[in-house]
């Protein structure tokens, strides 16, 4: 019996589960990464490899234990070793005597035949091409709905009157989107979810600072890998905007909103004209764009030993100086102690709030417009 699984990345599993089910596959849901995931992952991967390799390894072993035998994942291009992780995972799992099949999706525009072949492999229900395209579109729509709900929590959480309401309501509305299985149901569930989140009582007069989050995709998208940094920041009264979503929604908006209509690549160009793999260039470009949009600070998240992000980190002080925007970097690893991160976050938030407060008091004329933001 074919049982399919895939990596856990935030809430995206809800959309992937639906899509794979639609194509006629039995799906083993990847569990939220936990201490057990980490322990398994660390045991079977090289010590010096980066965090995503370890977490994914743990996830695969957990799902294989539950009966999964087909692992769907992504490859990648460019000089970042994560692009080779799928092959490495396969090798390690085969060495362990586990007979699994690995289906690796490369970027479809560069490798169209790989994409078609892989979709064909997963088309257990023998659907027509038109039906497959419809299912993929629907899955994408669900992914967008999930991203939109998450995005709204980032705006509401720092302003909620009662701490914890947003997180609680978010859990609830996620289930509504999860249960919607047709495109019209998804759209309806999304609208209901956003409306429900908007109902949360908020303090609109609160001094809220805005932080842009940049960095490597896996630690950005999987909250357990970044010690739920967005939730922590929200509770500290910070509105966060993440530079990356699976649906790329934020990125499109970032382009449009900037005055000069710059792309991330353009914005990074004066500092780093080359693609260095991973998301190093994006980290720099997004920092520039956030600074242009008058954000109060930037947080860079990177897996420990991630070369592209190390390069970005050494360039970011120059961006920080040129645009007068504070940048805080966290290198994440299997260490789960939250105290050190909290101390730095608290200090960073104090820094931004004091700076903003001072600015508002120096230029009182700006106060009304800031308050309505």
């Amino acid at each position, binding site marked *: 019996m074919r049982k399919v699984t895939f990596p856990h990345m935030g809430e995206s599993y809800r959309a992937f589960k639906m899509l794979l089910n639609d194509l006629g596959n039995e799906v083993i849901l990847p569990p939220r990464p936990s201490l*057990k*995931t980490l322990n398994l992952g660390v045991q079977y991967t090289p010590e010096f490899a980066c965090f995503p390799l370890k977490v994914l390894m743990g996830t695969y072993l957990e799902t294989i234990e539950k009966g999964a035998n087909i692992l769907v994942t992504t490859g990648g291009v460019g000089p970042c070793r994560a692009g080779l992780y799928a092959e490495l995972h396969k090798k390690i799992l085969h060495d362990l005597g586990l007979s699994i099949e690995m289906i690796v999706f490369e970027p479809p525009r560069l490798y169209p035949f790989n994409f078609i072949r892989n979709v064909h492999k997963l088309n257990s229900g023998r659907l027509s091409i038109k039906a497959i395209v419809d299912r993929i579109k629907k899955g994408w729509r669900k992914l967008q709905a999930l991203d939109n709900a998450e995005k709204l929590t980032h705006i509401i959480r720092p302003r909620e009157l009662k701490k*914890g309401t947003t997180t609680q309501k978010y859990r609830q509305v996620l289930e509504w989107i999860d249960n919607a299985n047709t495109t019209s149901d998804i759209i309806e569930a999304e609208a209901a979810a956003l409306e429900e989140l908007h109902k949360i009582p908020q303090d609109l007069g609160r001094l809220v600072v805005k932080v842009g989050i940049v960095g490597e995709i896996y630690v950005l998208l999987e909250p357990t890998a970044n010690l739920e940094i967005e939730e922590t920041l929200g509770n500290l009264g910070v509105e966060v905007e993440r530079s990356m979503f699976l649906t790329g929604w934020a990125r499109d908006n970032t382009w449009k909103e900037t005055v000069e209509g710059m792309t991330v690549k353009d914005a990074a160009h004066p500092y780093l004209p080359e693609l260095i793999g991973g998301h190093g260039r994006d980290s720099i470009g997004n920092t520039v764009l956030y600074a242009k949009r008058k954000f109060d600070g930037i947080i860079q998240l990177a897996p420990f030993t991630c070369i592209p992000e190390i390069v970005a980190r050494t360039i970011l002080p120059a961006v920080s100086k040129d645009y007068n925007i504070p940048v805080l970097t966290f290198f994440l690893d299997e260490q789960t102690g939250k105290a050190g991160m909290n*101390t730095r976050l608290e200090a960073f938030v104090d*820094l931004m709030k004091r700076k903003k407060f001072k600015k508002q008091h120096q230029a009182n004329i700006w106060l009304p417009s800031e308050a309505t933001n």
Partner: protein
Amino acid sequence: MQAYLGIDVGSVSTNLVIQDQAGKIIAGLYLRTKGRPVETIQAGLQQIVQLIPEQIQICGVGTTGSGRYLAGVMVGADAIKNEITAHAVAASHFIPQVQTILEIGGQDSKIIILRDGIVTDFAMNTVCAAGTGSFLDQQASRLGIPITEFGDLALESHNPVRIAGRCTVFAESDMIHKQQMGHPIPDIINGLCEALVRNYLNNIGKGKEILAPVVFQGGVAANTGIKMAFEKALGMEITVPPHHDVMGAIGAAMLAKEELIDTHKTTRFKGFSITGLTYRTSSFDCNGCPNSCEIAQIYEEDSIIGRWGARCPRWDIIQEG
């Protein structure tokens, strides 16, 4: 007379300060935490109450340091703040023009950059304790030299030897190597001071613009050898403020004052009588989800007053008021 109490519970030392309304320090204490924060806080309160005139009334309490939450629930703090903000606030109180703060404590070291009186950047050591007080302590006791005399010995050196400062393990083997070669102790200690400063500037200070006035505080600021090494490496004068070892506690007291003025509230301080209460801590593994968080809790007499370690709100305690 009204005054504010500040408590800084660090990994190595626990500091208490009582500051009057005008900002003058009435009493300050520097105690070793010795791995027992609860007992040390109680002992500290007991000792400091003896040092102050009887008519003094505590009208606000702030806590900081890695044990700030523990101390906060024990004493009833009005402000529980991270040590970076606390150190910055205290330094700008004594030296208002300060632009750079170097702080080296027991287990951590940090740099804080200020411009026009507000913090614009900071960094804290992340992966390594090389160059912090604990390592100096350890080396002083290995050489049988009291830590208080350690720095002065460095001043007697004429020809510092080069010690690898990147990692305490390497530094120690390098020191032993130099000692077995016959280098005099002052030269080795001076070499160590220079190595630690090099390590600090390369790691914590990386990419930061260090401008004068520079203030050096934290327990290690008492070490004249390190101060001299900083001055040599930076080529500028370094100020070690009075009360440099209790600056975190001073900052906490000032933040408590600020908080109470902003919110128009009165203090939640439980009084010095808490030194007579029994505090007990315990821990357990939560089995609510696969995260298996290790939850620590603290009891005052028989009631739980604080819980930590959860990654979700399941074990949160609703604070009154």
